[in-house]
């Protein structure tokens, strides 16, 4: 659903990220347009997750600029980035394992709860309205992702596929403008992948959330993504629509190897 008049939501410019002598990202620039599903692909160690961590504030690049909603972003910590409307999920599920599904999802509302802690303690007055309002929204998201049957289950005991879904629910509870998904379908079977793909498309279309995702399954990427960035050894290899990427000789070489 890309149309030509799309506004650029996020732009990374000439990002360089080094860990000691190891260069993780080398001069990478690309943009993410409002409302699109943007895939970031590449072989293992290409710098995809590092790129997400840069956008998310976990890593601070030595050089380069990040522009978000038309403004250059200063160096930020992850919790500050969250406040600007960017949510994410992790490659290795990062849930609050001691909490139930609904409690996990409620943490996504953390930033929007601002009543005095004294009222919250007493569950009195304005704090009750607040709690009810946010809980309602969380229940809607839980319904949307079809995980209402595990609402009260501690997430540590859930199967992998469902944990991934709870993580997505928590990110959605933040009502982000930009949602970063780090391998949302890793380790899933075909059926689970189909479910997850459907949810990603639904989130994009129904909530209008812009999504940037890393994924290894090429079939999924080609189906879901409006545009694709390809990274290889920390460098930008290609950038375009799935069709263009599939036909790109450099990409084919990187994935299949060049005959010697």
């Amino acid at each position, binding site marked *: 659903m890309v149309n030509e008049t799309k506004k650029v939501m996020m732009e990374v410019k000439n990002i360089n990220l080094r860990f000691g002598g190891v260069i993780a990202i080398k001069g990478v620039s690309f943009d993410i347009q409002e409302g699109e599903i943007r895939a970031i692909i590449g072989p293992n160690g290409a710098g995809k997750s590092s790129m997400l961590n840069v956008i998310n504030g976990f890593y601070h690049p030595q050089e380069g600029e990040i522009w978000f909603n038309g403004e250059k972003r200063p160096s930020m910590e992850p*919790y500050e980035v*969250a406040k600007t409307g960017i949510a994410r999920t*992790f490659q290795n599920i990062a*849930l609050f*394992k001691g909490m139930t599904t609904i409690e996990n999802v409620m943490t*996504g509302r953390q930033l929007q709860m601002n009543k005095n802690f004294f009222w*919250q303690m007493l569950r009195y007055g304005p704090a009750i309205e607040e709690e009810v309002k946010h809980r309602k929204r969380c229940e809607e998201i839980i319904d949307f992702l079809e995980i209402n049957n595990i609402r009260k289950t501690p997430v540590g005991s859930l199967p992998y596929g469902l944990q991934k879904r709870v993580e997505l629910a928590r990110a959605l509870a933040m009502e982000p403008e930009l949602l970063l998904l780090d391998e949302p379908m890793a380790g899933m079977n075909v059926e689970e992948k189909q479910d997850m793909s459907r949810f990603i498309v639904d989130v994009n279309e129904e909530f209008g959330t812009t999504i940037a995702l890393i994924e290894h399954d090429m079939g999924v990427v080609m189906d879901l993504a409006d545009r694709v960035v390809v990274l290889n050894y920390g460098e930008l290899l290609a950038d375009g629509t799935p069709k263009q990427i599939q036909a790109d000789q450099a990409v084919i070489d990187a994935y299949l190897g060049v005959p010697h």
Partner: protein
Amino acid sequence: MDFLTGIFVTPFAEMIDMPDLFFQALWDGFVSGTLYGLIALGFVLIFKASGVFNFAQPILVVLAALALISFYKMGIPAWISVICVLIMFYGLAWLIERLILRKLVNTDGNILFMSTVALSFIIIGAAQWIFGGRPSSMIHKELGFPTGSLEWPMFGGGVYFELLDISAAVVAVLLIIALGLFFSRTKIGRGLRAVADDPQAALSVGISLNQIWVIVWFVAGVVALVTGIFWGARSDVSFALQIIGFKALPVLIIGGFTSVPGAIVGGLMIGLGEKIFEIYWGPLLGSGVEGWFAYFIALGFLLFKPQGLFGDKIIERV
């Protein structure tokens, strides 16, 4: 045979024979139990938030008590002195976060633990330098806590209630309820649990680790202040007071390092257990049972239920 009777028959016969004495023992045990629970609570809060056994917690109790007395001696009214100590602890929490925790985030638990050991020695040194090392007495009277005792006729005898013990128990129970509500219902409490569970994920939903750490260390300071006031009132305030911190260890082992209710239940078990055991079984073993009873129970827990009654399976980090 006499020995077995001494263990299994005589103590219970005595309990039934003199219910007033038994009730007295229960009350005394309850009071020291809540106070043990309070000390343990300070450890639990910090362990939950940053996964570190805070070696400096007992010295915070001494620092709170010493600072309170010093402020009062400077001519500041008693309750204003309490506020001054709170402000001081907020500053201290902020400094600890800035200078220690922030630098050591994501390092091994042992490194954090060693840094709290260092912190405790820094605080000892600083406190001796600023407040002096001489024992002084607590200002609980000036704070308006009643002294003296009440005798209540009961079961044909009488039970003594120290008024100070009653206020200690009341304040401890109120503090525990308040903390329970604070951590289960407020945004900050949720944030704390999130940080304890997975710091990275907590950051990604917008929770600031730094803010949570400052709050938790401050709350641990508040708990230390209350502990300091009531323990200080029972003896002198001096650096020897930090030894009560060691009493918190068995409490933590029994209740679990991560559980607020565990700290309370563990505290009560130790408090009640050692009083009852001392009075009824103590004579069999010579006296001084109170000194080792807690550790004996804790050893049993370590052997058979190392995670404690309410704890997570996290004890290996200590």
